[in-house]
């Protein structure tokens, strides 16, 4: 159920660091705020080129434009579009707000007088990265007093009811179930993406990882599998891992082309919008994903997956990976949990032999893993999605 019209104005600032991750999350956030909560959203983005990959209709020359009811402003410094303080200001992933925006916040605070009908200064939030680590519960929602006198809140997405929740549109699971119930949807989608020759009995794996030798090892393994394996791979960082398998350089590979290597067919995947990517994840037997946005969407796809996590100094990413795996495997039989964890760990550590060994151990056709993948989204969402919790958080602030 959509909430009542609020007439609120929210600004989201997004600095693109990793091509599609940051903008992917903030674009979904903006759409859900607008569609399900009727909030007027302005999304400020510093890299429209990256954004265009998931919103192809974006005009790179325009400093301001509107799609799906969301105003998209080019974030350049100094700002070409005027920032007018609204009800909420979100800095995504701790990006540094422009000085002139901060100054406006200070002015709004100084001018605000509770006794008048003046508009309150905006609620200022830092939307943080998703993590399954336990410390997130203790930091979520805490204020951050700034030396300027302003107060900012840290909003942490997470998997428990003491965190900020997970981005998930209210109709998403119903749409996914309807899609997956009709087998013809899968083949139609592959056809529409120019992915030819995929049969119902074939194994289809989507790949959106960073560079890793583990992917090369898996592809070499799949070449000699009994069944045909179709690996759907976009041009970019993951394809760079497969240079030695390709008949030409990565630059010469064109979208939609196929490279047949014994029982492995590599399909060069065209970029799709976010709705298209969701359908792709729903349609594959297994998904290899990375970062944050595709990682979460792979969970919502209710299919088994490998998470290639963003590498951090001192191998800290392995702590984050482990925290998620512990949570994900809570209700899995121990043997299966161990195989799935070992596969993810080996893939992330670039251990080629171990990745292949654990892939073979993990019985993809086995019912428990698939059943778990279907149940997990219901458990993980914890009743209330991130956007609904966020709207409530702002009301309570």
């Amino acid at each position, binding site marked *: 159920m959509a909430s009542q019209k609020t007439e609120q104005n929210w600004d989201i600032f997004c600095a693109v*660091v990793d091509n599609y991750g940051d903008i992917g999350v903030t674009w979904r956030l903006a759409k859900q705020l607008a569609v399900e909560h009727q909030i007027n959203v302005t999304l400020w983005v510093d890299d429209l080129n990256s954004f265009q990959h998931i919103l192809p209709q974006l005009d790179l020359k325009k400093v301001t434009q509107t799609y799906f009811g969301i105003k998209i402003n080019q974030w350049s410094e100094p700002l070409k579009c005027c920032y007018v303080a609204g009800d909420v200001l979100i800095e995504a*992933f*701790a990006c540094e707000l422009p000085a002139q925006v901060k100054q406006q916040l200070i002015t709004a605070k100084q001018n605000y007088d509770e006794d008048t009908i003046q508009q309150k200064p905006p609620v200022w939030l*830092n939307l*943080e*990265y*998703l*993590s399954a*680590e336990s*410390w997130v519960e*203790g*930091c979520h929602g*805490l*204020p*951050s*007093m*700034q*030396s300027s*006198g302003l*107060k900012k809140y*840290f909003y942490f997405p997470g998997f428990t009811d003491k965190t900020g929740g997970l981005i998930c549109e209210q109709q998403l699971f119903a749409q996914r179930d309807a899609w997956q119930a009709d087998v013809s949807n899968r083949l139609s989608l592959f056809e529409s993406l120019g992915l030819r020759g995929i049969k119902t009995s074939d194994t289809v794996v989507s790949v959106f990882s960073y560079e890793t030798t583990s992917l090369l090892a898996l592809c070499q393994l799949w070449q000699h599998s009994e069944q045909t394996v179709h690996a759907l791979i976009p041009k970019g960082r993951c394809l760079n891992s497969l240079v030695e398998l390709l008949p030409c350089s990565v630059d010469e590979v064109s979208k939609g082309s196929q490279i047949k290597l014994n029982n492995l067919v590599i399909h060069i995947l065209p970029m799709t919008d976010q709705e298209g990517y969701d359908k792709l994840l729903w349609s594959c037997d297994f998904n290899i994903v990375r970062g*944050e946005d595709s990682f979460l969407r792979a969970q919502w796809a209710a299919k088994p997956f490998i998470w290639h996590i*963003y590498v*951090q*100094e001192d191998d*800290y990413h392995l702590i984050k990976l482990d925290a998620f795996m512990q949570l994900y495997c809570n209700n899995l039989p121990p043997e299966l949990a161990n195989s799935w964890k070992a596969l993810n760990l080996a893939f992330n550590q670039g251990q080629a032999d171990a990745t292949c060994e654990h892939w073979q151990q993990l019985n993809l056709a086995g019912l428990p893993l698939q059943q778990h993948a279907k149940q997990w989204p219901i458990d993980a969402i914890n009743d209330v999605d991130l956007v609904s919790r966020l709207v409530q958080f702002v009301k309570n602030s």
Partner: protein
Amino acid sequence: MKTAHELRPGNVIMLDGSPWVVQKTETTRSGRNAAIVKLKLKHVLQDSTTESTFKGEDKMEDIILERLDCTYSYFADPMYVFMDAEYNQYDVEAENLGDAAAYIVDGMEENCQVTFYEGKAISVELPTSVVREVTYTEPSARGDTSGKVMKPATITGGGTLSVADFVKTGDMIEIDTRTNEFKKRV
């Protein structure tokens, strides 16, 4: 100015026009190596505490108050008593020591800095590192000598921290008081 990452228990910072004593710091890592610092703060003028979160690189004004080098003398519940070179005694509330209390032990020789606000001792800052005895830790499980495998340990005074797997009960270890991290065996 200090960054949130540089703060440690005993520091006094100015936020929203008020002085606050840092009682506890917890540093964690968010995505892309960014540090998140959670602080437990006590208002210097009022008897109120709060928790707050910062980016590691957030800058804040640390107030330079009067400080004196002192040594720990004794505990008279709920006060820790410190003494300067001229044998003057200063009482600091146990609550104001925050995490530093775990390293205050009888007979400690390290110099601490007692901070004063309007003549009242309000906090104590420990040296950057202290040496303490491990009073209990499980024997090494894996025989690891790299220092990367960690296990829990209790030190003199009852504090706990993670130490390298090769550390044994009775060993003296150096601890970074800013992060509560094991540095080395001495």
